[in-house]
């Protein structure tokens, strides 16, 4: 029996904070301070520019010698502003870290390969794998690594493809046919191959995989760009709000005759606290981590866009075989003929199937056992097994002078009639009713008694699929089963599996039409495929997952490749896509909601002395200090520290993605809004208050 698990057990995943990755990310955080890198992220660029300005002001103030306590405040603000930038860089580096580590392993395989290239005149030369060009011919023998992608032109060999797929069971590669394609970086285990290289250096599957894993080819996805625009817009709005505070306060100070206009340090602090640094700092990390999560599921997404599109999918086209059903028919019921007991039928069916190694045959043996028939000793009875042939369309056993046969109903009816025994109407009716229920009837007879009954073979729906489809429906995703079966059978399985719709007697053209019909209706379609005739549909679908075992054409047409070749994984990919978008939305909401508390920390600190009755007293706006923070310095410092720490605190969330449970959009929204919206509004109040307490306790800022 096949594994009933829908999800293949995930490969051992590395912990989120692998010390090696953390160490490398720490270094990268500093390297990413390069202006060219910062310019890609408008929010963090503003923070970095602010830090730069405060640094210059600080140097100037140190040189001109201002008083000690002010200097301590300014040093701390400057440091924390730089730390904010570094934290954001660190988040991105962490997200890239895992991919980079994996890329390193892949690269190692590529570097070491040496190829034996054939020259004109039958000579050969040794060259590095990276020097091979299209149409070069190479010879690879057992134990050697295949140097580049190519097509086998001579030879048959077993190849270990685990370097690419992680699957260690060897596969056969041979010239001609569907199994002629080989991938660079895989190893020949036995025999030899002559291979014509089909790609130029740098274009191999391994190269593409490395650049994808590494994130070098990463481009911002459409939704990420839109969000970037929003964040840049908000940043400009806050830049306006904060910078115009200067003229307003100059006017106010002039008019009040007391207080001081805020200095550059407080203004930049306010700006950095208000602009959406949380999401700005984590945005690219979320995207990279999303791609990485897809990779952890052993799916290679050709672009971030594809992962994002997966979240938007409205319609899933799922192949019946292997995805919805186990792929083999299973015996589920014995229907005995009149006057035959069910045990007799089970006994005959089992006997005839004992040497039948097909899954169907084995399932009959298993079902018979459930009717109380144990394994029996057969050798004493000297049975003669008759194998299935295309001519007879039945198989069976000759035992104790009797001939037991099972097979397609017409074949068995012929066999019975040849023995001058009748086929009753009742049996014919059983056969029809099984066929109508979507099953396959298998008749059983012997030479002496004639027809004993019918075995009901049925496509078995994988465990848990029905619930899975129910969840998908709750998420607003329609599932359509694709099958080559006739409509009757298809309808029966569709209703049992709980899919929303089915396409029976599916041809590549019908599949293509279905995709186009869905897309014209404004729906996004995801599908899996492996054959060359799937290629057009894979290319047309918004998310096309090609099986790694599939043909080259299919792999090139899809925008994702499943290295495990497990079609059920499409559902996981959809969930990862959704999780990616949700994480972005949640952190954006959180980031904006945070601002309210920061106003109540910084504004009273900035304008605490404005309109005061006497110098040194608090002015009326100190009443806005509803958190009861100690002093203007401690308030501003605490807000800036909180702002920086939030980025670090949310790195795990950004990398893992927010928890996702399949439910309706409305339920999801209420839940996330409560956590990230309301939470984002409330959390900073106690957070800033606590930091204020600590800052004052450590004498980093004055207590009054």
């Amino acid at each position, binding site marked *: 029996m096949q594994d009933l698990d829908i999800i293949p057990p995930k490969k051992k995943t590395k912990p989120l904070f692998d010390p090696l990755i953390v160490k490398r990310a720490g270094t990268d955080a500093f390297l990413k301070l390069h202006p060219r890198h910062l310019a890609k992220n408008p929010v963090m660029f503003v923070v970095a520019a602010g830090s730069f300005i405060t640094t210059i002001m600080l140097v100037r103030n140190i040189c001109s010698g201002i008083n000690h306590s002010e200097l301590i405040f300014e040093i701390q603000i400057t440091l924390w502003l730089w730390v904010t930038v570094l934290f954001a860089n660190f988040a991105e580096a962490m997200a890239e870290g895992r991919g980079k580590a994996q890329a390193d392993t892949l690269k190692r395989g590529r570097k070491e390969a040496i190829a034996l290239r054939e020259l004109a005149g039958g000579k050969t030369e040794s060259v590095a794998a990276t020097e091979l060009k299209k149409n070069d011919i190479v010879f690879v023998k057992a134990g050697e690594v295949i140097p580049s992608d190519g097509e086998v032109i001579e030879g048959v060999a077993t190849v270990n493809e685990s370097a690419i797929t992680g699957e260690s069971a060897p596969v056969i590669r041979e010239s001609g046919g569907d199994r002629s394609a080989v991938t660079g970086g895989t190893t020949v285990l036995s025999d030899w191959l002559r291979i014509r290289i089909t790609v130029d250096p740098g274009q191999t599957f391994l190269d593409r995989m490395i650049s994808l894993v590494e994130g070098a080819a990463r481009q911002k996805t*459409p*939704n990420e760009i*839109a*969000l970037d*625009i*929003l964040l*840049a817009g*908000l940043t*400009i*709005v*806050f830049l*306006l*709000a904060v910078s*115009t*505070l*200067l003229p*307003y306060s*100059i*006017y*106010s100070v*002039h*008019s*009040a005759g007391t207080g001081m206009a805020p200095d550059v340090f407080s203004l930049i602090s306010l700006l950095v606290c208000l602009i959406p640094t949380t999401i700005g700092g984590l945005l690219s990390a979320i995207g990279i981590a999303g791609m990485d999560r897809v990779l952890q599921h052993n799916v290679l997404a050709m672009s971030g866009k594809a992962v*994002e599109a997966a*979240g938007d999918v*409205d319609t899933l086209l799922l192949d019946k075989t292997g995805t919805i059903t186990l792929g083999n028919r299973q015996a589920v019921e014995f229907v005995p003929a009149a006057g035959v007991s069910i045990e007799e039928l089970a006994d005959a069916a089992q006997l005839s199937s004992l040497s039948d190694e097909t899954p169907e045959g084995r399932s009959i043996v298993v079902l018979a056992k459930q009717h109380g028939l144990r394994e029996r000793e057969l050798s004493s009875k000297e049975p003669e097994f008759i194998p299935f042939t295309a001519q007879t369309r039945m198989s069976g056993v000759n035992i104790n002078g009797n001939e037991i046969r099972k097979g397609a109903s017409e074949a068995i009816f012929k066999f019975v009639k040849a023995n001058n025994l009748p086929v009753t109407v009742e049996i014919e009716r059983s056969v029809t009713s099984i066929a109508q229920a979507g099953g396959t009837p298998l008749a059983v007879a012997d030479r002496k008694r004639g027809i004993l009954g019918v075995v009901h073979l049925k496509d078995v729906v994988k465990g848990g699929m029905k619930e899975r489809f129910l969840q998908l429906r709750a*998420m*607003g*995703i329609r599932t359509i089963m694709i099958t080559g079966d006739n409509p009757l059978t298809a309808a029966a399985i569709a209703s049992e599996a709980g899919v929303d719709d089915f396409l029976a007697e599916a041809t590549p053209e019908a599949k293509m039409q279905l995709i186009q019909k869905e897309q*014209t*209706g*404004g*729906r996004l379609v995801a599908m899996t495929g492996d054959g060359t005739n799937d290629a057009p549909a894979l290319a047309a679908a918004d998310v096309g997952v090609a099986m790694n075992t599939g043909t080259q054409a299919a792999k090139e047409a899809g925008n994702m490749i499943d290295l495990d070749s497990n079609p059920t994984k499409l559902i996981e990919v959809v969930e990862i*896509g959704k*999780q990616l978008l*949700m994480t972005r*939305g*949640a952190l954006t*909401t959180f980031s*904006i*909601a945070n*601002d*309210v508390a920061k*106003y109540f920390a910084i*504004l009273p600190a900035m*304008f605490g002395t*404005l*309109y005061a009755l006497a110098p040194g007293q608090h002015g009326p*706006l100190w009443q*806005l200090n509803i958190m009861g923070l100690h002093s203007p310095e401690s308030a501003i410092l605490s807000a800036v520290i909180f702002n920086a720490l939030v980025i670090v605190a949310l790195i795990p969330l950004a990398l893992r993605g927010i928890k*996702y449970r399949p439910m*309706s*959009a*409305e339920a*999801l*929204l209420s839940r*996330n*809004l409560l956590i*990230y*919206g309301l939470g984002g509004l409330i959390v900073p109040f106690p957070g800033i208050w606590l930091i204020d307490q600590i800052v004052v306790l450590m004498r980093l800022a004055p207590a009054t």
Partner: protein
Amino acid sequence: MTAIGWFQILLFAVIIALCAKPLGAYIYAVLESKNHFLSRLLRPLETNSYRLVGIDPDHDMTWIEYSQSLLAFSLVSLLFTYAILRLQGLLPFNPMQFSTANAPSWATALTPDLAFNTAMSFTTNTNWQAYSGENTLSYLSQMLGLAFHNWVSAAAGIVVAVALIRGFARRTAQGLGNFWADMTRTCLYILLPICFVYSLFLVYQGVPQNFNAYTEATTIEGSKQIIPQGPIASQESIKMLGTNGGGFLNANSSHPFENPTPLSNFIQLLSIFLIPAALTYTFGKAIGDTRQGWTLLSAMFLLFFAGVFICYHFEAQGNPNVARQNVEISTKTLGDTGGNMEGKEVRFGLANSALFATVTTDASCGAVNAMHDSYTPLGGLIPLLNIQLGEIVFGGVGAGLYGMLIYAVLTVFIAGLMVGRTPEYVGKKIEKKEVKMAMLFVLAAAFCILVFTGLACILNLPEKSLLNPQGATWNNINNSGPHGLSEILYAFSSATGNNGSAFAGLSVNTPFYNTLLALAMFIGRFLMIVPVLAMAGSLAQKKYVPATSGTFPTYTWLFTLLLISIILIVGALTFFPALTLGPIVEHFLMNEHRLF
């Protein structure tokens, strides 16, 4: 606050809610050129006017053509009004002989910068007035120069909203409709019939409608008084219905000739919200899901109630410094004439003044029946904040709806991601282009209000300079301290928001303020309309995405609350720092017995 006060406020709200559906459905029929009860009567007029000027009403315009038509129309009509104002001395219907050698001694000169400011003000539906109508403008200037704009700028606002509605409603379409046909239909079938009845009603209530010279009267005390006259009723109706707000007379709707009775006051209030509320229904009907329209309307109502509650509350509390002088101001004893009655008409009282101030700034009307400058700090904060939020609470005719839709798009984009899909609003995906246009819309307003106010706070021009005879630009304010800042902030907010009401207390008839405020009005109108039309064009081209249970539902109470939160957070976060230094600190200082 009093029960009778709240009763009037609630009655007002109920009537608005009841009118939304029938009028909204009618507007939909008009703009989709379906048959309605006026089509048989007025259709010949419509078709003949197209024939007269050679317009093909069925020509479907792209967003670029639509914008070009609107901008060209506005530019030509701007110049037209400027010319009329500058030439009014030579033109007829000028009984008081303004802008001539025989102008009365109390007349204000219509300088080029004032004429430019005024022309811009009326072209942009702002109706900011740096002049007093009765001592500056001839009747022709009022009617042809200004009232004309009251009609077409209102219609322009409505057609932009309609274009955006079509952007949402149409599927994979290039066009947004025909600008000229939309303008004609709006004026002819929506504004004209209502104003016709409305003007007659105002005449019946006592509003003058004549071309007489001003009446000179001697008061009982023996002093001389000049009583202005003019075609007031016809201008008053469109002033309110088109959320224009520019008074024929300086005192606007607090003047008995513009707003003579409590009944006329109530009707004027209703006429401000009438069309903006109805347009939400038009939106719902056009996209085939009226729930969406009701949701927007409910968000508007909640924000309206919050505003009127706060404003009424603080006005009813009055100024504690008055009570300290042992003056009875409690509304418990004085009813709706207690509290802060400074700058308010006794015949309207607190509730109707607070309601008027809220309504006129929720919408981009700007008509006033009391002086906003004299409101308590937090009572006056409401009109200011209403304008700064973008006047999306009902809002200007058309402008309110498209502003609210921009916020709906932003809400869906920010929060909608949390359901794990590319955000959609009423079946249209919200992507890069939409977000970009929405942010341009938000940025244009924020830039104008914040930067221009900042400039006016610190621009130290030399004494007697040509730009500003008062010298430093902050010298033009009559009040010091936070109240002075509020006055400048209010002026630029009002101009940018195309509201037109004033906090007063700021002498704005100088080249500096006239020009800068005109610029703010220009940016606040056209730099916001063009992104809206661009968004409409982009939306119209998109496919319709059918809603599933995975779609972010935008017709629920949750969405209403979310929309309000985004409006408040995005809007308030932008202006909160400025407001802190204005009304908020003034409130604290008032409680410390320090007044400005």
